[in-house]
Protein backbone atom coordinates (compact mmCIF):
# COMPACT_ATOMS: atom_id res chain seq x y z
CA UNK A 1 0.00 0.00 0.00
CA UNK A 2 1.23 3.47 -0.86
CA UNK A 3 2.06 5.83 1.96
CA UNK A 4 -0.09 8.82 2.85
CA UNK A 5 2.53 11.07 1.37
CA UNK A 6 2.71 9.15 -1.91
CA UNK A 7 -1.03 9.44 -2.39
CA UNK A 8 -0.91 13.13 -1.59
CA UNK A 9 1.83 13.63 -4.18
CA UNK A 10 -0.27 11.79 -6.75
CA UNK A 11 -3.22 14.06 -6.05
CA UNK A 12 -1.04 17.16 -6.39
CA UNK A 13 0.39 15.83 -9.66
CA UNK A 14 -3.10 15.14 -11.00
CA UNK A 15 -4.16 18.71 -10.34
CA UNK A 16 -0.98 20.07 -11.89
CA UNK A 17 -2.18 18.66 -15.22
CA UNK A 18 -4.90 21.32 -15.30
CA UNK A 19 -3.73 24.77 -16.06
CA UNK A 20 -6.86 26.76 -15.39
CA UNK A 21 -9.41 26.80 -12.59
CA UNK A 22 -12.05 25.27 -14.86
CA UNK A 23 -10.02 22.14 -15.32
CA UNK A 24 -9.32 21.90 -11.61
CA UNK A 25 -12.96 22.36 -10.73
CA UNK A 26 -14.12 19.88 -13.33
CA UNK A 27 -11.66 17.38 -11.87
CA UNK A 28 -12.97 18.11 -8.39
CA UNK A 29 -16.55 17.66 -9.58
CA UNK A 30 -15.62 14.31 -11.14
CA UNK A 31 -14.00 13.20 -7.89
CA UNK A 32 -17.15 14.25 -6.08
CA UNK A 33 -19.30 12.19 -8.39
CA UNK A 34 -17.04 9.16 -7.87
CA UNK A 35 -17.03 9.36 -4.08
CA UNK A 36 -18.43 6.03 -2.77
CA UNK A 37 -21.86 6.44 -1.26
CA UNK A 38 -22.31 6.65 2.45
CA UNK A 39 -24.82 4.39 4.16
CA UNK A 40 -28.02 6.42 4.55
CA UNK A 41 -28.09 5.38 8.20
CA UNK A 42 -25.12 7.70 8.76
CA UNK A 43 -26.64 10.74 7.10
CA UNK A 44 -27.91 12.02 10.41
CA UNK A 45 -27.44 15.26 12.28
CA UNK A 46 -24.86 13.77 14.62
CA UNK A 47 -22.67 12.98 11.62
CA UNK A 48 -22.84 16.55 10.30
CA UNK A 49 -19.65 18.58 10.39
CA UNK A 50 -20.02 22.08 11.77
CA UNK A 51 -18.38 24.94 9.93
CA UNK A 52 -19.40 23.92 6.41
CA UNK A 53 -21.91 25.97 4.44
CA UNK A 54 -23.15 22.92 2.64
CA UNK A 55 -24.11 19.88 4.64
CA UNK A 56 -21.30 17.35 5.12
CA UNK A 57 -21.75 13.98 6.79
CA UNK A 58 -18.71 12.02 7.89
CA UNK A 59 -18.69 8.54 9.37
CA UNK A 60 -15.78 6.37 10.52
CA UNK A 61 -15.56 2.66 11.29
CA UNK A 62 -12.75 0.68 12.79
CA UNK A 63 -11.98 -2.40 10.68
CA UNK A 64 -9.27 -4.38 12.40
CA UNK A 65 -6.50 -1.91 13.10
CA UNK A 66 -7.57 0.50 10.41
CA UNK A 67 -10.11 3.28 10.15
CA UNK A 68 -12.51 3.37 7.25
CA UNK A 69 -14.13 6.68 6.36
CA UNK A 70 -17.28 7.35 4.39
CA UNK A 71 -18.80 10.74 3.70
CA UNK A 72 -21.30 12.67 1.67
CA UNK A 73 -22.41 16.21 0.98
CA UNK A 74 -25.34 17.82 -0.78
CA UNK A 75 -22.89 20.02 -2.72
CA UNK A 76 -20.82 18.30 -5.38
CA UNK A 77 -17.67 20.44 -5.12
CA UNK A 78 -17.66 19.82 -1.41
CA UNK A 79 -17.88 16.09 -2.14
CA UNK A 80 -14.84 16.43 -4.36
CA UNK A 81 -12.92 18.07 -1.55
CA UNK A 82 -13.95 15.34 0.88
CA UNK A 83 -12.73 12.79 -1.58
CA UNK A 84 -9.30 14.49 -1.63
CA UNK A 85 -9.07 14.15 2.11
CA UNK A 86 -10.37 10.63 2.38
CA UNK A 87 -8.12 9.14 -0.29
CA UNK A 88 -4.84 9.47 1.62
CA UNK A 89 -6.33 8.83 5.08
CA UNK A 90 -8.58 5.88 4.37
CA UNK A 91 -7.62 2.48 5.80
CA UNK A 92 -4.92 3.86 8.08
CA UNK A 93 -4.24 3.37 11.75
CA UNK A 94 -5.33 6.08 14.20
CA UNK A 95 -1.70 7.09 14.72
CA UNK A 96 -1.04 7.47 11.02
CA UNK A 97 -4.10 9.70 10.69
CA UNK A 98 -3.23 11.75 13.74
CA UNK A 99 0.32 12.34 12.47
CA UNK A 100 -0.66 13.06 8.88
CA UNK A 101 0.34 16.45 7.52
CA UNK A 102 -2.52 17.62 5.33
CA UNK A 103 -0.67 20.64 3.99
CA UNK A 104 -0.79 19.12 0.50
CA UNK A 105 -4.17 20.76 -0.01
CA UNK A 106 -2.36 24.11 -0.28
CA UNK A 107 -0.15 22.76 -3.06
CA UNK A 108 -3.13 21.96 -5.24
CA UNK A 109 -3.76 25.68 -5.31
CA UNK A 110 -7.23 25.03 -4.04
CA UNK A 111 -7.25 26.93 -0.81
CA UNK A 112 -6.61 30.21 -2.60
CA UNK A 113 -9.67 29.52 -4.71
CA UNK A 114 -11.77 28.62 -1.76
CA UNK A 115 -13.71 31.31 -0.01
CA UNK A 116 -12.78 31.75 3.64
CA UNK A 117 -15.98 30.00 4.71
CA UNK A 118 -15.14 27.11 2.47
CA UNK A 119 -11.56 27.05 3.72
CA UNK A 120 -12.95 26.87 7.25
CA UNK A 121 -15.04 23.93 6.16
CA UNK A 122 -11.89 22.25 4.91
CA UNK A 123 -10.20 22.73 8.26
CA UNK A 124 -13.30 21.40 10.02
CA UNK A 125 -13.30 18.29 7.86
CA UNK A 126 -9.65 17.51 8.61
CA UNK A 127 -10.23 18.18 12.28
CA UNK A 128 -13.22 15.85 12.35
CA UNK A 129 -11.24 13.03 10.71
CA UNK A 130 -8.51 13.45 13.30
CA UNK A 131 -11.08 13.54 16.08
CA UNK A 132 -12.41 10.16 14.96
CA UNK A 133 -8.85 8.82 14.94
CA UNK A 134 -8.27 10.11 18.44
CA UNK A 135 -11.50 8.54 19.68
CA UNK A 136 -10.62 5.14 18.21
CA UNK A 137 -7.13 5.37 19.63
CA UNK A 138 -8.48 6.15 23.09
CA UNK A 139 -10.88 3.22 22.84
CA UNK A 140 -8.15 0.77 21.87
CA UNK A 141 -5.80 1.79 24.68
Amino acid at each position, binding site marked *: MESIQEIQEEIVDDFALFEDW*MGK*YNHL*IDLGKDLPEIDDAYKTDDHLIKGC*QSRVWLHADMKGEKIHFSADS*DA*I*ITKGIISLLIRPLNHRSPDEILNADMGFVDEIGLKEHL*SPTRANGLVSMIKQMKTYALAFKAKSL
Partner: protein
Amino acid sequence: MITKPETKFDLEAIRNEFPILNQKVNGQDLVYFDNAATSQKPKKVIQAIQDYYQNINANIHRGVHKLSQLATDAYEASRKTLQEHLNARFAHEIIFTTGASQGVNLVARAWGGKFLKSGDIILVSGMEHHSNIVPWQIIAQEKGAEVLPIPILESGELDLEAFHELLKKNPVLVAVNHVSNALGTINPVKEIIKLSHEKGALVLVDGAQSLPHMKIDVQDLNADFYVVSGHKAYGPTGSGALYGKEDLLKEMNPYMGGGEMISEVKFSGSTWADLPHKFEAGTPHIEGGIVLGKAIDWMNEIGLEEISRHENELLIYAQSKLNELEGFRPIGQAKNKASVLSFLMEGVHPYDLGMILDQLGIAVRTGHHCAQPVMDSYKIPGTIRASFAVYNTKAEIDRFVQGVQQACEMLR
Protein backbone atom coordinates in the same frame (compact mmCIF):
# COMPACT_ATOMS: atom_id res chain seq x y z
CA MET B 1 -37.72 69.35 0.76
CA ILE B 2 -34.94 68.06 -1.43
CA THR B 3 -35.07 69.60 -4.87
CA LYS B 4 -34.18 67.17 -7.58
CA PRO B 5 -31.21 68.22 -9.69
CA GLU B 6 -31.71 68.71 -13.41
CA THR B 7 -29.25 66.01 -14.43
CA LYS B 8 -30.63 62.87 -16.01
CA PHE B 9 -29.76 59.36 -14.91
CA ASP B 10 -26.19 58.75 -16.10
CA LEU B 11 -25.18 55.18 -15.33
CA GLU B 12 -21.60 55.57 -16.49
CA ALA B 13 -21.06 58.59 -14.29
CA ILE B 14 -22.57 56.70 -11.36
CA ARG B 15 -20.27 53.72 -11.93
CA ASN B 16 -17.28 56.03 -12.01
CA GLU B 17 -18.17 57.02 -8.47
CA PHE B 18 -17.33 53.48 -7.31
CA PRO B 19 -13.60 52.80 -7.71
CA ILE B 20 -13.94 49.30 -6.22
CA LEU B 21 -16.02 48.13 -9.19
CA ASN B 22 -13.11 48.75 -11.49
CA GLN B 23 -11.07 45.66 -10.64
CA LYS B 24 -10.48 42.11 -11.67
CA VAL B 25 -11.47 39.18 -9.49
CA ASN B 26 -9.98 35.82 -10.40
CA GLY B 27 -8.79 37.40 -13.61
CA GLN B 28 -12.22 38.69 -14.65
CA ASP B 29 -14.00 42.02 -14.35
CA LEU B 30 -15.80 42.10 -11.03
CA VAL B 31 -19.58 41.84 -11.11
CA TYR B 32 -20.88 42.76 -7.68
CA PHE B 33 -24.37 41.38 -7.07
CA ASP B 34 -24.21 41.03 -3.29
CA ASN B 35 -25.67 44.42 -2.56
CA ALA B 36 -28.29 43.18 -0.11
CA ALA B 37 -25.41 42.06 2.11
CA THR B 38 -23.65 45.39 1.82
CA SER B 39 -23.43 47.99 -0.91
CA GLN B 40 -20.25 49.51 -2.28
CA LYS B 41 -19.42 53.10 -1.38
CA PRO B 42 -19.22 56.10 -3.70
CA LYS B 43 -16.18 58.39 -3.71
CA LYS B 44 -18.17 61.06 -1.93
CA VAL B 45 -18.63 58.74 1.03
CA ILE B 46 -15.03 57.50 1.03
CA GLN B 47 -13.81 61.07 0.81
CA ALA B 48 -16.08 62.19 3.64
CA ILE B 49 -14.56 59.55 5.92
CA GLN B 50 -11.10 60.83 5.14
CA ASP B 51 -12.17 64.46 5.51
CA TYR B 52 -13.53 63.79 8.94
CA TYR B 53 -10.26 62.37 10.23
CA GLN B 54 -8.11 64.91 8.42
CA ASN B 55 -10.02 67.99 9.47
CA ILE B 56 -12.45 67.76 12.36
CA ASN B 57 -11.83 64.61 14.40
CA ALA B 58 -12.69 65.24 18.05
CA ASN B 59 -15.04 63.81 20.61
CA ILE B 60 -18.53 65.20 20.34
CA HIS B 61 -20.88 66.90 22.80
CA ARG B 62 -18.01 67.33 25.25
CA GLY B 63 -15.31 69.79 24.41
CA VAL B 64 -15.58 73.55 24.44
CA HIS B 65 -12.91 73.64 21.78
CA LYS B 66 -13.37 74.33 18.11
CA LEU B 67 -12.83 70.85 16.71
CA SER B 68 -15.28 69.31 19.14
CA GLN B 69 -17.85 71.86 18.06
CA LEU B 70 -17.24 71.17 14.39
CA ALA B 71 -17.54 67.41 14.90
CA THR B 72 -20.65 67.84 17.03
CA ASP B 73 -22.24 70.11 14.43
CA ALA B 74 -21.51 67.62 11.66
CA TYR B 75 -22.94 64.76 13.72
CA GLU B 76 -26.09 66.67 14.55
CA ALA B 77 -26.43 67.85 10.95
CA SER B 78 -26.46 64.22 9.90
CA ARG B 79 -29.18 63.48 12.44
CA LYS B 80 -31.15 66.29 10.82
CA THR B 81 -30.55 64.77 7.38
CA LEU B 82 -31.93 61.46 8.63
CA GLN B 83 -34.89 63.20 10.23
CA GLU B 84 -35.77 64.90 6.95
CA HIS B 85 -35.09 61.83 4.88
CA LEU B 86 -37.34 59.61 6.98
CA ASN B 87 -39.74 62.49 7.63
CA ALA B 88 -39.62 62.18 11.41
CA ARG B 89 -41.26 64.99 13.38
CA PHE B 90 -38.19 65.73 15.48
CA ALA B 91 -34.45 65.23 15.11
CA HIS B 92 -34.35 63.77 18.62
CA GLU B 93 -36.52 60.90 17.41
CA ILE B 94 -33.47 59.70 15.49
CA ILE B 95 -31.07 57.58 17.57
CA PHE B 96 -27.75 56.70 15.99
CA THR B 97 -26.98 52.99 16.09
CA THR B 98 -24.37 50.63 14.67
CA GLY B 99 -26.92 49.20 12.25
CA ALA B 100 -30.31 47.59 11.98
CA SER B 101 -29.41 44.84 14.44
CA GLN B 102 -28.60 47.30 17.18
CA GLY B 103 -31.80 49.21 16.46
CA VAL B 104 -33.93 46.13 17.05
CA ASN B 105 -31.93 45.06 20.08
CA LEU B 106 -32.28 48.53 21.55
CA VAL B 107 -36.07 48.47 21.28
CA ALA B 108 -36.35 44.87 22.48
CA ARG B 109 -34.24 45.68 25.51
CA ALA B 110 -35.29 49.25 26.33
CA TRP B 111 -39.00 48.95 25.48
CA GLY B 112 -39.47 45.22 26.07
CA GLY B 113 -37.36 45.30 29.22
CA LYS B 114 -39.73 47.82 30.74
CA PHE B 115 -43.13 46.94 29.33
CA LEU B 116 -43.24 43.28 28.36
CA LYS B 117 -45.15 41.07 30.74
CA SER B 118 -45.55 37.36 31.18
CA GLY B 119 -48.02 35.98 28.65
CA ASP B 120 -47.64 38.91 26.23
CA ILE B 121 -47.51 38.08 22.55
CA ILE B 122 -45.11 39.48 19.96
CA LEU B 123 -45.84 38.78 16.30
CA VAL B 124 -42.81 38.46 14.05
CA SER B 125 -43.20 37.97 10.32
CA GLY B 126 -41.99 34.68 8.92
CA MET B 127 -39.68 36.45 6.48
CA GLU B 128 -37.58 38.30 9.03
CA HIS B 129 -33.83 38.47 9.15
CA HIS B 130 -32.51 36.78 12.29
CA SER B 131 -31.80 40.32 13.56
CA ASN B 132 -35.53 40.91 13.86
CA ILE B 133 -36.30 37.53 15.42
CA VAL B 134 -33.64 36.66 17.94
CA PRO B 135 -33.72 39.92 20.01
CA TRP B 136 -37.44 39.32 20.53
CA GLN B 137 -36.85 35.72 21.52
CA ILE B 138 -34.23 36.75 24.06
CA ILE B 139 -36.42 39.35 25.78
CA ALA B 140 -39.54 37.18 25.50
CA GLN B 141 -37.75 34.35 27.24
CA GLU B 142 -36.70 36.65 30.04
CA LYS B 143 -40.20 38.01 30.50
CA GLY B 144 -42.22 34.87 29.87
CA ALA B 145 -43.69 36.40 26.72
CA GLU B 146 -44.30 34.52 23.49
CA VAL B 147 -43.04 35.13 19.93
CA LEU B 148 -45.39 33.93 17.20
CA PRO B 149 -44.62 33.90 13.47
CA ILE B 150 -46.84 35.43 10.81
CA PRO B 151 -46.81 32.78 8.06
CA ILE B 152 -45.80 33.52 4.48
CA LEU B 153 -47.45 32.37 1.26
CA GLU B 154 -45.80 30.45 -1.58
CA SER B 155 -45.67 33.74 -3.51
CA GLY B 156 -43.32 35.15 -0.89
CA GLU B 157 -45.96 37.51 0.47
CA LEU B 158 -47.17 37.66 4.05
CA ASP B 159 -50.33 35.69 4.72
CA LEU B 160 -52.54 38.64 5.66
CA GLU B 161 -55.51 36.44 6.47
CA ALA B 162 -53.45 34.55 8.99
CA PHE B 163 -52.22 37.91 10.28
CA HIS B 164 -55.83 39.02 10.87
CA GLU B 165 -56.41 35.88 12.90
CA LEU B 166 -53.21 36.36 14.89
CA LEU B 167 -54.22 39.92 15.73
CA LYS B 168 -57.20 38.52 17.60
CA LYS B 169 -54.72 37.27 20.18
CA ASN B 170 -54.03 40.93 21.04
CA PRO B 171 -50.28 41.05 20.51
CA VAL B 172 -48.39 43.91 22.14
CA LEU B 173 -45.95 44.36 19.31
CA VAL B 174 -45.58 43.39 15.65
CA ALA B 175 -42.13 43.20 14.03
CA VAL B 176 -41.93 43.15 10.26
CA ASN B 177 -39.48 44.16 7.58
CA HIS B 178 -40.30 46.71 4.91
CA VAL B 179 -38.33 44.73 2.33
CA SER B 180 -37.27 41.11 2.77
CA ASN B 181 -33.56 40.48 2.27
CA ALA B 182 -34.18 36.84 1.35
CA LEU B 183 -37.10 37.26 -1.06
CA GLY B 184 -37.16 40.92 -2.08
CA THR B 185 -40.82 41.21 -1.08
CA ILE B 186 -41.99 44.74 -0.30
CA ASN B 187 -44.41 44.30 2.56
CA PRO B 188 -47.59 46.40 2.91
CA VAL B 189 -46.33 47.93 6.14
CA LYS B 190 -48.74 50.86 6.13
CA GLU B 191 -51.68 48.46 6.17
CA ILE B 192 -49.99 46.18 8.71
CA ILE B 193 -49.39 49.16 10.99
CA LYS B 194 -52.99 50.36 10.67
CA LEU B 195 -54.40 46.93 11.50
CA SER B 196 -51.98 46.47 14.39
CA HIS B 197 -52.79 49.87 15.87
CA GLU B 198 -56.49 49.06 15.76
CA LYS B 199 -55.66 46.18 18.09
CA GLY B 200 -53.40 48.32 20.27
CA ALA B 201 -50.14 46.73 19.13
CA LEU B 202 -47.00 48.74 18.43
CA VAL B 203 -45.09 48.07 15.22
CA LEU B 204 -41.36 47.95 14.61
CA VAL B 205 -40.37 48.05 10.96
CA ASP B 206 -36.98 46.72 9.88
CA GLY B 207 -35.94 49.07 7.10
CA ALA B 208 -32.45 47.63 6.53
CA GLN B 209 -33.36 46.72 2.95
CA SER B 210 -35.73 49.57 2.18
CA LEU B 211 -33.43 52.53 2.85
CA PRO B 212 -31.32 51.96 -0.30
CA HIS B 213 -34.30 51.45 -2.58
CA MET B 214 -37.25 53.65 -1.72
CA LYS B 215 -38.52 56.82 -0.15
CA ILE B 216 -39.50 56.24 3.48
CA ASP B 217 -41.98 58.37 5.37
CA VAL B 218 -42.33 57.21 8.97
CA GLN B 219 -45.21 59.61 9.69
CA ASP B 220 -47.19 58.55 6.67
CA LEU B 221 -46.60 54.89 7.62
CA ASN B 222 -47.35 55.79 11.23
CA ALA B 223 -44.55 53.42 12.31
CA ASP B 224 -43.75 53.33 16.01
CA PHE B 225 -40.17 52.22 15.45
CA TYR B 226 -38.23 52.07 12.21
CA VAL B 227 -34.64 50.80 12.03
CA VAL B 228 -32.20 51.41 9.20
CA SER B 229 -28.66 50.41 8.41
CA GLY B 230 -26.06 52.64 6.76
CA HIS B 231 -23.86 50.05 5.12
CA LYS B 232 -26.56 48.70 2.82
CA ALA B 233 -27.34 52.22 1.61
CA TYR B 234 -23.93 53.35 0.33
CA GLY B 235 -22.81 54.41 3.82
CA PRO B 236 -20.14 53.12 6.21
CA THR B 237 -20.39 49.83 8.07
CA GLY B 238 -21.28 50.23 11.71
CA SER B 239 -23.64 53.12 11.00
CA GLY B 240 -27.39 53.15 11.28
CA ALA B 241 -30.35 54.71 12.99
CA LEU B 242 -33.43 53.97 14.99
CA TYR B 243 -36.47 56.14 14.55
CA GLY B 244 -38.93 56.02 17.43
CA LYS B 245 -41.96 58.12 18.25
CA GLU B 246 -41.02 60.72 20.83
CA ASP B 247 -43.49 59.64 23.50
CA LEU B 248 -42.40 56.00 23.22
CA LEU B 249 -38.71 56.81 23.38
CA LYS B 250 -39.31 59.03 26.40
CA GLU B 251 -41.03 56.24 28.31
CA MET B 252 -38.41 53.63 27.55
CA ASN B 253 -35.52 52.60 29.78
CA PRO B 254 -32.01 53.50 28.68
CA TYR B 255 -30.32 50.81 26.61
CA MET B 256 -26.71 51.17 27.67
CA GLY B 257 -25.30 53.09 30.59
CA GLY B 258 -22.24 55.26 30.26
CA GLY B 259 -20.97 58.68 29.37
CA GLU B 260 -23.17 61.14 27.52
CA MET B 261 -26.47 59.43 28.38
CA ILE B 262 -26.81 60.84 31.88
CA SER B 263 -28.15 63.99 33.38
CA GLU B 264 -26.68 63.48 36.83
CA VAL B 265 -24.75 60.58 38.31
CA LYS B 266 -24.85 59.98 42.04
CA PHE B 267 -24.40 56.78 43.99
CA SER B 268 -27.82 57.40 45.44
CA GLY B 269 -29.18 57.15 41.88
CA SER B 270 -28.61 58.68 38.47
CA THR B 271 -30.94 60.46 36.07
CA TRP B 272 -30.98 60.19 32.32
CA ALA B 273 -30.24 62.74 29.67
CA ASP B 274 -32.94 63.90 27.27
CA LEU B 275 -33.53 62.36 23.88
CA PRO B 276 -31.67 61.37 21.82
CA HIS B 277 -28.65 61.17 24.17
CA LYS B 278 -30.40 58.87 26.61
CA PHE B 279 -29.82 56.08 24.08
CA GLU B 280 -26.37 57.07 22.92
CA ALA B 281 -24.01 56.08 25.73
CA GLY B 282 -20.30 56.24 25.13
CA THR B 283 -18.33 57.71 22.27
CA PRO B 284 -20.31 56.76 19.19
CA HIS B 285 -19.12 55.84 15.71
CA ILE B 286 -18.80 59.57 15.02
CA GLU B 287 -17.47 59.39 11.49
CA GLY B 288 -20.00 56.67 10.63
CA GLY B 289 -22.88 58.80 11.83
CA ILE B 290 -21.66 61.86 9.95
CA VAL B 291 -20.99 59.99 6.74
CA LEU B 292 -24.32 58.16 6.84
CA GLY B 293 -25.85 61.59 6.22
CA LYS B 294 -23.53 62.07 3.24
CA ALA B 295 -24.61 58.71 1.82
CA ILE B 296 -28.23 59.79 2.07
CA ASP B 297 -27.42 63.08 0.38
CA TRP B 298 -25.72 61.11 -2.38
CA MET B 299 -28.80 58.93 -2.93
CA ASN B 300 -31.01 62.00 -2.99
CA GLU B 301 -28.79 63.67 -5.57
CA ILE B 302 -29.58 60.80 -7.92
CA GLY B 303 -33.13 60.54 -6.66
CA LEU B 304 -34.70 57.49 -5.08
CA GLU B 305 -37.29 57.27 -7.84
CA GLU B 306 -34.52 57.06 -10.42
CA ILE B 307 -32.66 54.50 -8.33
CA SER B 308 -35.66 52.24 -7.92
CA ARG B 309 -36.69 52.65 -11.57
CA HIS B 310 -33.24 51.51 -12.71
CA GLU B 311 -33.06 48.65 -10.23
CA ASN B 312 -36.50 47.48 -11.16
CA GLU B 313 -35.47 47.38 -14.80
CA LEU B 314 -32.49 45.23 -13.85
CA LEU B 315 -34.68 42.89 -11.82
CA ILE B 316 -37.15 42.36 -14.65
CA TYR B 317 -34.35 41.90 -17.16
CA ALA B 318 -32.50 39.37 -14.99
CA GLN B 319 -35.64 37.43 -14.25
CA SER B 320 -36.63 37.17 -17.91
CA LYS B 321 -33.11 36.09 -18.92
CA LEU B 322 -32.87 33.46 -16.19
CA ASN B 323 -36.32 32.24 -17.12
CA GLU B 324 -34.86 31.04 -20.40
CA LEU B 325 -32.55 28.65 -18.56
CA GLU B 326 -33.60 25.10 -17.86
CA GLY B 327 -34.54 24.36 -14.28
CA PHE B 328 -34.72 27.99 -13.11
CA ARG B 329 -36.88 28.30 -10.02
CA PRO B 330 -37.41 31.77 -8.56
CA ILE B 331 -38.02 31.84 -4.80
CA GLY B 332 -40.31 34.68 -3.87
CA GLN B 333 -42.47 36.17 -6.59
CA ALA B 334 -44.36 38.86 -4.76
CA LYS B 335 -46.14 41.41 -6.91
CA ASN B 336 -44.23 44.16 -5.14
CA LYS B 337 -40.52 43.49 -5.12
CA ALA B 338 -37.24 45.30 -4.58
CA SER B 339 -34.15 44.33 -6.56
CA VAL B 340 -33.46 41.02 -4.84
CA LEU B 341 -33.55 37.88 -6.93
CA SER B 342 -33.49 34.64 -4.95
CA PHE B 343 -33.54 31.43 -6.94
CA LEU B 344 -32.53 27.81 -7.35
CA MET B 345 -31.32 25.89 -10.38
CA GLU B 346 -32.68 22.39 -10.49
CA GLY B 347 -30.13 19.69 -9.70
CA VAL B 348 -27.51 22.20 -8.59
CA HIS B 349 -26.57 23.08 -5.03
CA PRO B 350 -26.54 26.86 -4.46
CA TYR B 351 -23.13 26.69 -2.87
CA ASP B 352 -21.57 24.93 -5.88
CA LEU B 353 -23.09 27.52 -8.16
CA GLY B 354 -21.80 30.35 -6.00
CA MET B 355 -18.29 28.87 -6.10
CA ILE B 356 -18.20 28.70 -9.87
CA LEU B 357 -19.64 32.21 -10.20
CA ASP B 358 -16.90 33.44 -7.89
CA GLN B 359 -14.34 31.94 -10.26
CA LEU B 360 -15.99 33.97 -12.99
CA GLY B 361 -15.58 37.16 -10.96
CA ILE B 362 -19.26 37.32 -10.04
CA ALA B 363 -20.17 37.94 -6.40
CA VAL B 364 -23.52 36.57 -5.22
CA ARG B 365 -24.73 35.29 -1.89
CA THR B 366 -25.64 31.68 -1.30
CA GLY B 367 -27.25 30.08 1.71
CA HIS B 368 -30.10 30.99 4.01
CA HIS B 369 -29.33 34.74 4.07
CA CYS B 370 -29.79 34.89 7.85
CA ALA B 371 -33.45 34.07 7.35
CA GLN B 372 -33.67 30.38 8.16
CA PRO B 373 -37.43 30.40 8.83
CA VAL B 374 -37.98 31.59 5.23
CA MET B 375 -35.99 28.66 3.89
CA ASP B 376 -37.84 26.28 6.21
CA SER B 377 -41.18 27.49 4.92
CA TYR B 378 -40.06 26.69 1.36
CA LYS B 379 -38.45 23.46 2.63
CA ILE B 380 -35.13 24.35 1.01
CA PRO B 381 -31.71 24.73 2.64
CA GLY B 382 -30.95 28.00 0.90
CA THR B 383 -30.94 29.91 -2.36
CA ILE B 384 -28.66 31.81 -4.67
CA ARG B 385 -29.30 35.51 -4.30
CA ALA B 386 -28.39 38.23 -6.76
CA SER B 387 -29.21 41.70 -5.48
CA PHE B 388 -28.78 44.82 -7.55
CA ALA B 389 -27.74 48.36 -6.74
CA VAL B 390 -27.92 51.58 -8.70
CA TYR B 391 -24.49 51.01 -10.30
CA ASN B 392 -25.27 47.61 -11.81
CA THR B 393 -25.82 47.16 -15.54
CA LYS B 394 -27.63 44.91 -17.98
CA ALA B 395 -24.26 43.87 -19.42
CA GLU B 396 -23.36 42.55 -15.96
CA ILE B 397 -26.60 40.61 -15.87
CA ASP B 398 -25.74 39.08 -19.24
CA ARG B 399 -22.43 37.87 -17.83
CA PHE B 400 -24.14 36.58 -14.72
CA VAL B 401 -26.75 34.63 -16.67
CA GLN B 402 -24.05 33.21 -18.90
CA GLY B 403 -22.11 32.25 -15.77
CA VAL B 404 -25.12 30.50 -14.28
CA GLN B 405 -25.54 28.55 -17.50
CA GLN B 406 -21.88 27.59 -17.63
CA ALA B 407 -21.89 26.54 -13.98
CA CYS B 408 -24.98 24.39 -14.47
CA GLU B 409 -23.33 22.64 -17.39
CA MET B 410 -20.31 21.87 -15.22
CA LEU B 411 -22.31 20.78 -12.20
CA ARG B 412 -25.18 18.78 -13.60
